[in-house]
């Protein structure tokens, strides 16, 4: 596949080209945090460093010479491909039922710095929403037209553990184009024909062996900087063997059940669909109602998530936390053949109580 280099000062040209056809999503600083938004090349917060720890995040202007000098923020592709709240259809019930689906008015999306961990999550999303018994038409249409630029990582944060999950810091497949930031330029490697088309027409530099060596060395350096790891080889057995471990109850004491982890985890996909209506949708004739059927992100931490007639299947916080972690680290593999955790560390950073999934996993190993 096509490989070429792009001078750093030409990054804007890539944006210009993409913007003609796509909404270009990339990193931007908002409120002291790197978030994902439609951006221009100059919005990239180059030179910023993010310092992450369990329950903590700080962005500072640092010394790193790279443009992509920071790691991941809270947001991921899922906000865009499977939005937090969307209309499934509008309904009207009178003598019969009429259903109107919203028009697909959205521009195709280009993700400009999807990281390897998130790319793995995207692969999982594809399995869930495209390869299951029923395909999600909304996701399908957006995903089909989107362009994925994976950015191989140079600077992990202290909560990253992608090597443990086999998802990073380098992406090997599943992208349209892979970017690696070298000292003087970007190395662009097309992964699909779609990717090649995008590269065509950009001012291209030859790629030689030394570039490939530099890429290797940089990624290797990144790998060395990663501090956290889990023994993924022990999964899912470790979880299955320890469903009644006393640790679950201990975590429940700290667990806020705020749901931040599930909302930000790039693989969490739980959602709820409901009929939204206001008074204006109700007519005086009791059988006439109109409204919108909405789908929103939900979470296994919501107390009523597993509620049925006669009770709640997971009434305790302990059970809900266990459900979450088991789903991430054990069930997803069984359900979709891919790990449910990609090692991005978001759930660790953005947990206000600082609960660290890797530490909790370690604790499950200790004697009961």
């Amino acid at each position, binding site marked *: 596949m096509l490989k070429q280099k792009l001078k750093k000062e030409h990054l804007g040209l890539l944006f210009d080209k993409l913007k003609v056809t796509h909404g270009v999503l990339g990193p931007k600083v908002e409120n002291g945090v790197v978030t994902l938004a439609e951006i221009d090349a100059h919005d990239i917060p180059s030179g910023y460093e993010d310092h992450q720890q369990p329950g903590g995040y700080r962005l500072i202007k640092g010394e790193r010479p790279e443009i992509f000098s920071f790691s991941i923020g*809270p947001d991921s592709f899922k906000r865009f491909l499977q939005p937090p709240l969307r209309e499934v259809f509008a309904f009207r019930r009178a003598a019969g039922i009429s259903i109107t689906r919203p028009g697909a008015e959205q521009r195709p999306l280009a993700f400009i710095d999807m990281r390897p961990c998130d790319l793995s999550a995207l692969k999982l999303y594809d399995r869930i929403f495209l390869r299951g018994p029923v395909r999600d038409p909304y996701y399908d249409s957006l995903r089909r037209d989107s362009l994925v630029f994976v950015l191989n990582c140079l600077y992990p944060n202290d909560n990253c553990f992608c090597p443990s999950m086999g998802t990073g810091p380098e992406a090997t497949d599943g992208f349209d184009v892979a970017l690696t930031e070298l000292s003087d330029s970007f190395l662009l490697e097309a992964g699909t024909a779609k990717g090649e088309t995008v590269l065509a027409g950009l001012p291209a530099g030859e790629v030689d062996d030394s570039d490939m060596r530099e890429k290797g060395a940089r990624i290797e350096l990144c790998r060395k900087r990663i501090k956290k790891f889990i023994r993924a080889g022990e999964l899912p057995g470790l979880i299955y063997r320890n469903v009644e471990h006393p640790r679950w109850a201990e975590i429940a004491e*700290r667990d806020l059940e705020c749901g931040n982890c599930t909302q930000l985890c790039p693989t969490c996909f739980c959602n709820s669909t409901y009929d939204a209506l206001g008074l204006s*949708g109700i007519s005086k004739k009791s059988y006439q109602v109109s409204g919108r059927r909405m789908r929103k992100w939900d979470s296994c931490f919501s107390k009523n998530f597993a509620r049925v007639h006669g009770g709640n299947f997971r009434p305790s916080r302990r059970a809900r936390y266990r459900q979450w972690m088991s789903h991430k680290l054990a069930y997803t593999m069984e359900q979709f053949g891919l790990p449910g955790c990609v090692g991005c560390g978001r759930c660790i950073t953005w947990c206000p109580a600082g609960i660290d999934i890797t530490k909790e996993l370690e604790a499950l190993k200790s004697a009961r």
Partner: protein
Amino acid sequence: MKRPWIGVFKFTSCDGCQLSVLNMEDELPDFVSLFQVAYFREAGDMPLRGRFDIALVEGSVSTGWQKAQIIEVRERTRHLVTIGACAAAGGLQALRNWADIEDYKRLVYPSPDMIETLPCSTPVSDHVYVDYELWGCPVNCDELSEMLGSFLLDRKPGIPAYSLCMECKRKGVPCLLVAKSEPCLGPVTRAGCGVLCPSMERPCYGCFGPKEGANIGSLLEAFRNAGFSSHECVLLLDKMNTYAFREAGTGEGRF
């Protein structure tokens, strides 16, 4: 469909929640055509008579005569819904519950003996059975409309009992607690306001009361780690929903 009779009642409060009914401007015409507004002092001159299919009750119970009145409202009402933090949790005025009421009277009134009031301001549910509580200081108009619509259609209102953080993350607001160590009550506060404060870059101060199963102890631990004293932590909870937050924190009214 028979138009259900609705009554709007006020106890100790700021009137903001009943004003929210009038603030549903776009839906007000539907409201008055779908419901028979049979009692709503703030909006109309109607005698109190008959029975109500649904009553919206604003305000906390803080005087002796209110104790009797809320029982009367309950007896007249099929489906009693409280609106707002005062009715659900006693309101800001429940701060008196942790102080001496006689001191309070003296501080405000030249002749404190002329003032009749109870030592505590309490939620409606401490006095009568409540069918549904709509939280918020003030309630959110969309939730109000959802609740009224659900009543008409005989279904449970689609109003979440989970945390504000859920809404906050859906909205894509960067977390203030994690990124700025600001004492945000989001993790223990019920969703519903539409993430007003974090969107304004200020920490949530808990208008919508404790979410179901709020883990107050753990959040305060996080605040202490961020450098807040225990006293400051208590003051953070001691706002419009002080009574409910303290109860959620310890399972009882007092720490």
